[in-house]
């Protein structure tokens, strides 16, 4: 055990003093910052700003309805705080509209169907007709045809693909206008159709979660943890693989083997990688919280509440065990690959197919998130090398206890078995310069007594 810990310590020091470690430590929070904060600072969080106009050939009621909706959104956007406190102290996001309505230029209003496309092109180029000075170009033109509400369909004109948020906004505004018109037809005594604007505020709650936790953020946190598991595992395991290939090429491995058994070496390396991974996580976590704190105090509160809900006293040990199992499974596989490779080129050729298999969970993630306790999620959770990943995704959704404990046992068993197998592969191949063994020969290493 002493030698194992000495090797682990050496591995830890070796990796955390590399320039690449500092770069990766800095890059991830910077990347998160760029992805999340820069759009906020540039005013682009959520939908992009759009200048649009409406040509209403029905008389103008729909144009006015859309313009009014855009104005309401713009006023909400100018509100001093972007968030307000909900009923239970949880921050509630206020919907905002980034769409600015502009009156349509005369030539566009007058254009008939045959000339409408040309008129739209002119409007999108920024020609707003007489009476305007250096106006901004329009991004989108909405056409309400004369027969709208019956056979006619509203059109949305833009260069290229119309913005999906604007499209959704126009769709909502027109739907509401049609609903108001329908209400007027059946109940003309209603003087204030704004009652239809009453917005429903749904707050997702979970009986197993503490009050104040936000269910949306709660579902994101396990996903983030699972993705971080993948990123940290692949990143650190790749370093482990490179380290073994380097030790093989410099014959340092021979010195190590004269000091310790293959099992002590592989165990030491894996413990070292776990220490590096946990250090990475702690630094990333602190950096992210610092960045979130700079950006918005509310975000820190949300994530903390969610972490408390996700990583409760009940689930925290399980989450940690699944995380460590995942890390050890990936680390063992990479270590085995490294011990079979004679060069980094060899390692790359072995790594390619392995990465395809290991990355499969990322392809399946959407289905599992949509229905965390459905058939797909349950089935994938029983694939040994994916168990930690999917169970981390599912743990906040309270999978049935038999699945939770069963997959936990599977993950631990898989991990122990893979570490044992890696020790055998390492002992057999780390000193050879032969071609990497066949898949059959590798599987045979699972058989006790097989040399």
């Amino acid at each position, binding site marked *: 055990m002493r030698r194992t810990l000495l090797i682990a310590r050496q591995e830890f020091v*070796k990796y955390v003093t*590399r320039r690449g470690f500092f770069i990766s430590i800095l890059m991830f929070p910077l990347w998160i910052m760029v992805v999340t904060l820069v759009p906020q600072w540039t005013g682009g969080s959520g939908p992009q700003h759009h200048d649009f106009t409406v040509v209403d050939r029905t008389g103008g009621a729909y144009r006015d309805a859309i313009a009014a909706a855009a104005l309401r959104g713009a006023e909400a956007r100018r509100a001093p705080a972007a968030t307000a406190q909900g009923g239970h102290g949880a921050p509630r996001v206020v919907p905002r509209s980034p769409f600015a309505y502009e009156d349509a230029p005369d030539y566009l209003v007058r254009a008939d169907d045959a000339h409408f496309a040309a008129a739209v092109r002119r409007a999108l180029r920024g020609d707003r007709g007489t009476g305007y000075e250096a106006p901004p170009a329009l991004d989108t033109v909405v056409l309400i045809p004369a027969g709208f509400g019956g056979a006619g369909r509203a059109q949305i004109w833009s260069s290229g693909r119309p913005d999906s948020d604007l499209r959704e906004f126009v769709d909502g505004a027109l739907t509401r206008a049609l609903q108001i018109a329908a209400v007027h037809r059946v109940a003309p005594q209603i003087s204030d159709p704004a009652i239809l604007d009453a917005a429903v505020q749904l707050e997702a709650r979970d009986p197993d979660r503490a009050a104040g936790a936000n269910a949306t953020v709660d579902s994101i946190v396990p996903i983030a943890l699972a993705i971080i598991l993948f990123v940290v595992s692949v990143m650190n395991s790749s370093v482990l693989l490179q380290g073994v290939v380097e030790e093989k090429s*410099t014959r340092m491995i021979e*010195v190590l083997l004269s*000091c310790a058994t293959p099992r002590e070496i592989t165990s030491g390396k894996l413990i070292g990688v776990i220490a590096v991974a946990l250090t990475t996580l702690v630094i990333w976590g602190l950096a992210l919280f610092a960045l979130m704190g700079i950006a918005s105090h509310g975000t820190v509160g949300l994530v903390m509440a969610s972490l408390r809900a996700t990583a409760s006293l009940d689930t925290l040990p399980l989450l940690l065990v699944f995380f460590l199992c995942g890390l050890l499974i990936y680390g063992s596989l990479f270590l085995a690959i490294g011990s079979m490779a004679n060069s980094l080129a060899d390692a790359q050729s072995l790594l390619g197919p392995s990465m395809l298999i290991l990355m499969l969970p990322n392809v399946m993630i959407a289905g599992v998130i949509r229905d965390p306790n459905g058939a797909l999620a349950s089935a994938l959770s029983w694939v040994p090398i994916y168990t930690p990943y999917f169970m981390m995704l599912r743990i906040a959704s309270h999978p049935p206890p038999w699945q939770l404990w069963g997959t936990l046992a599977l993950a631990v068993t898989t991990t122990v078995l893979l570490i044992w197998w890696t020790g055998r592969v390492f002992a057999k191949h780390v*000193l050879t310069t032969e071609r990497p063994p066949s898949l059959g020969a590798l599987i045979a290493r699972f058989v006790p007594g097989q040399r």
Partner: protein
Amino acid sequence: MPETVLELAHVTKRFGDFVAVDDLSFGLARGSILGFLGPNGAGKTTTLRMMLGIVPPDAGTIRVLGRDIAEVRERIGYLPEERGLYKRMRADAAIAYIATLKGLSRGDALARARKLLDGFGLGPFARVRIEGLSKGMAQKVQVLAAVAHDPEFVILDEPFSGLDPVNQTELEAFIRGLAAEGKTILFSTHTMQHAERLCDRLLVLAKGRKLFEGTLEAARRLLPRRARIGADADLAFLAGVPGVLNAAAPAEGQANWTLELSEGADGRTLLAACFEKGVPLSHFDLAPPSLHDVFVSLVEERSPAP
């Protein structure tokens, strides 16, 4: 009877169909220096790895310091043929790391590392990374890493390769110093001069089989003594002198005749014969065969057929 530090009995190692070591048996007494000689591919490194427990033998037994290798790992020092150190480690830390793996505490290991570096004139480089050292310096660091934990048995695989003559002499002195401390040393080498100067005993291996084991004198006795005589005249008549086994004319580009003498033959009879014939000599020397000659002869003539 001296204590046996290393004992191999009928050790065989195969890699697929290839027999790397074939039924090898030998022993090594405490305090001796054994030269492990053999051409490339003779099975030297495989044998060393088996002694260290890095690869298991397919047959036979190996006892080190009277026990299984796993029990005495910390009492052995090992210098591999190809130097293995972490390039980004500092010299003292590199030595100390191996020493800690061999049982020393970190503090003791570092203190020992610095003392050894000072002794080798590398004190000022103790905090320099391995990648910043010259090849010779890095090799010295590697040698020191092999012995920093004060092992009883030291295995050195090609310790002189890549060292300049000055560093070779320095390392020879260091190995002699280790032997003087009572350590048992086994080193493999291709350089016969080092083996001649350092070893008490020699073991010659070829194609996985032992060709010779014994002292340097015993090795030299494997070949007849040789006399080299330089003269302008034809010396073929010397073949008839009692004790002369063979008289060979100078090879192209060489000046001297080579005469092989039987054991106990008196070289002075050659001088007397030349004097009687009135042949003036430009060169005369009588010397035992070099280890190089013995080695070449053993490997070329006695190595087992493939």
